[in-house]
C-alpha cells in the first residue's frame, strides 16, 4: 500500500426521481447516500451488500454509465463528471466493467472475435490484422482457444462467456476494472477458475479491481479492502482483516452470522443441536 490511490471517491451521492402520478408528488430515492473511499493501484476493494443497497448504482457511476448527483470521483488523478463533460476516449480506456450475468452481457448476434475487437475498432486506429492478433492473444490469455474466435456466444458455457466478457473488458488495457458480481451466476468450480483468472490478470497488468459481491467467502478470499453497504450507506470500511475479524456495525455482524458455513465444526455443532 504505497498510498498511490488510483480511485478516489468523496461523498458520492446518487438520487433517483420517481415520477409522481397526477395526484402524487414525485419522490426522491437515494440509492447512494454519500460514500467515500480510496482504492490503491493494483489492489482489490470489495463492495459487499444485499440487493437494493446501492452497490450496482455505485458500479454504474464508477464506470461512467450514469452520472452522480453529488460528490467527486477521481480516476488516476483525473476528476470525472459525465453530466457536464461526457466521457472521453481516454477516460473510457481507464475503466471497464464486467457484468454479473454472462448470458446477457454478450451480444447474441456477434461472434466472439467481433466482441473482442469492437473496443479496439472504436477507440484505436489499429489495422484489422493487428486487431485480430490482439483478440487471439487475449483469447489465449483468458484460457480460451483460437478456434473460439469465430463462434457465437450461445455456443459457450457460462464460465467461458464470463472469460470472454473479462477479455473484452481488458482489451483496452484499463487501469481500473469494476466487477459487478462476476462469479455469482457461476458454478462453484467455474467460480474458482474465474477467480484465479482474475488474480492472474491483476498480477500481469497491475489491475485495480472494485469487486462487487454479496458472497462473503469470495470477498474474504479476493479482497484487500472491504466496504459494506447497507441502504446506500457505507456502514463498514477497512482492510479485509479489520472487517472480518472485528466487525463494528450490527449489520455486518448479521451478515456474517447469516452466511452459511461449510466447515466441519459448524456441521458438528448443528448436528449436536439437532440431536438435542
Amino acid at each position: 500500500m504505497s498510498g498511490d490511490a488510483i480511485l478516489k471517491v468523496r461523498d458520492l451521492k446518487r438520487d433517483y426521481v420517481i415520477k409522481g402520478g397526477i395526484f402524487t408528488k414525485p419522490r426522491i430515492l437515494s440509492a447512494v447516500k454519500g460514500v467515500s473511499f480510496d482504492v490503491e493501484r493494483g489492489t482489490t476493494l470489495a463492495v459487499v451488500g444485499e440487493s437494493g443497497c446501492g452497490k450496482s448504482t455505485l458500479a454504474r457511476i464508477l464506470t461512467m454509465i450514469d452520472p452522480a448527483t453529488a460528490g467527486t470521483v477521481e480516476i488516476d488523478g483525473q476528476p470525472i463528471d459525465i453530466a457536464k463533460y461526457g466521457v472521453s476516449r481516454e477516460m473510457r480506456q481507464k475503466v471497464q466493467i464486467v457484468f454479473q450475468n454472462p448470458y446477457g452481457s454478450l451480444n447474441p448476434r456477434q461472434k466472439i472475435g467481433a466482441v473482442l475487437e469492437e473496443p479496439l475498432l472504436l477507440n484505436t486506429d489499429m489495422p484489422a490484422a493487428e486487431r485480430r492478433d490482439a483478440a487471439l492473444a487475449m483469447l489465449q490469455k483468458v484460457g480460451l482457444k483460437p478456434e473460439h474466435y469465430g463462434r457465437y456466444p450461445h455456443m459457450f458455457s457460462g464460465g467461458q462467456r464470463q472469460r470472454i466478457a473479462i477479455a473484452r473488458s481488458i482489451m483496452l488495457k484499463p487501469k481500473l476494472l469494476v466487477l459487478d458480481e462476476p462469479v455469482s451466476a457461476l458454478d462453484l468450480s467455474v467460480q474458482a477458475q474465474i477467480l484465479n483468472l482474475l488474480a492472474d490478470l491483476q498480477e500481469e497488468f497491475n489491475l485495480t479491481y472494485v469487486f462487487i459481491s454479496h458472497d462473503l467467502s469470495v470477498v474474504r478470499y479476493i479482497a484487500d479492502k472491504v466496504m459494506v453497504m447497507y441502504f446506500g450507506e457505507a456502514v463498514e470500511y477497512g482492510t479485509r482483516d479489520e472487517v472480518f475479524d472485528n466487525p463494528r456495525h450490527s449489520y455486518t455482524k448479521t451478515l456474517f452470522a447469516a452466511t452459511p458455513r461449510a466447515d466441519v465444526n459448524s456441521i458438528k455443532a448443528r448436528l449436536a443441536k439437532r440431536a438435542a
Partner: protein
Amino acid sequence: MPLLEIRNLVVEFDTAAGPFRALDGVDYTVDAGEVLAIVGESGSGKSVAMLAVMGLLPDTATITADRMAFEGRDLATLSPKDRRQVIGKDISMIFQEPIASLNPCFTVGFQIGEVLKTHTRLSGSERAARVIELLKAVGIPEPERRLSSFPHQMSGGQCQRVMIAMAIACSPKLLIADEPTTALDVTIQKQILDLLLKLQAESGMGLIMITHDMGVVAETADRVVVQYQGRQMEEADVLSLFESPKHPYTKALLSALPENATGDRLPTVGDFRALFETAPKEATA
C-alpha cells in the same frame, strides 16, 4: 419402508442435436423426518430427478426407472387420478424464483386457498382460518392483512414464505425444495432455511434440498447425494462428506470453496477431472 425410493432412474431429452441423457442411473432414498440434499453444478441433473417424480418434465423427456415408489406405491403404475392425489398433497415442491412461481393476478390468500380447495374437504370458513394459520406458521407478520396482498406487493423473501405456506398447506409427507434460497439475499436465505428446518422438524416430513451451494448443504442436510453430469458421484451423511470426502469430485468441489483456500490460487475441478471421469460410481460404495 422409505418414504421415497428411486432406483436406476434414467431421463433422456430429445433435442436438436439428438437424444441427451440428463440422468444416468441414479438412486435416491428418503426416509420420513430426513433431510436429503442433492448437490451438483449446472448440468448435473439435480433438478431433473425431482421434476420426473413430480411429473413436471416436458413431453420430450423419456423417463425410465427400475423402481420409483412413494410409501411403497409405484408411481409409474398409479392412475393419473391417484397420482394427482399423491403429488400436490403428499409430495409438494417449492422453486427457485418465488416471485415467478406465484400467479401475479391473484391474491396470496386466494392462491393458498386454491391448494386447500383442490386437496381437502374443508369448508370456506375453515379454509380461510387455515390460510391464516399457515401464513402465521411461515412467519408472515399480520397474516390477516397480508391475505389480500398481491405477489408484487411483497418482497422475494415473503413470496418464498408464501410458496412454503402453499407447499405445506396439505401437510405433505415429502417436501422438495429446488434451490429455494438461490434468488434471495444471504440474511433472507438464513431465515428461509431456518423456517424450512423448523417446519420439517415439527411435522416430521421428509425434505429434499436441491442446491449448488455447499454452505446450504452444510447448514441443512442429514444426508447428501453429490451429482455430476447426470451421474451420482457420492452419497454420504453430511459430516463424513465434509470430513472425509471419498470421491475425487467431492474433494474437488470442497477444495474449490474460497473459504477453504490455502494458497495463492484456488484448486479447480479441472485439476481433478482426470481422476473422477475415469472413476465413476464405484466411489459411492
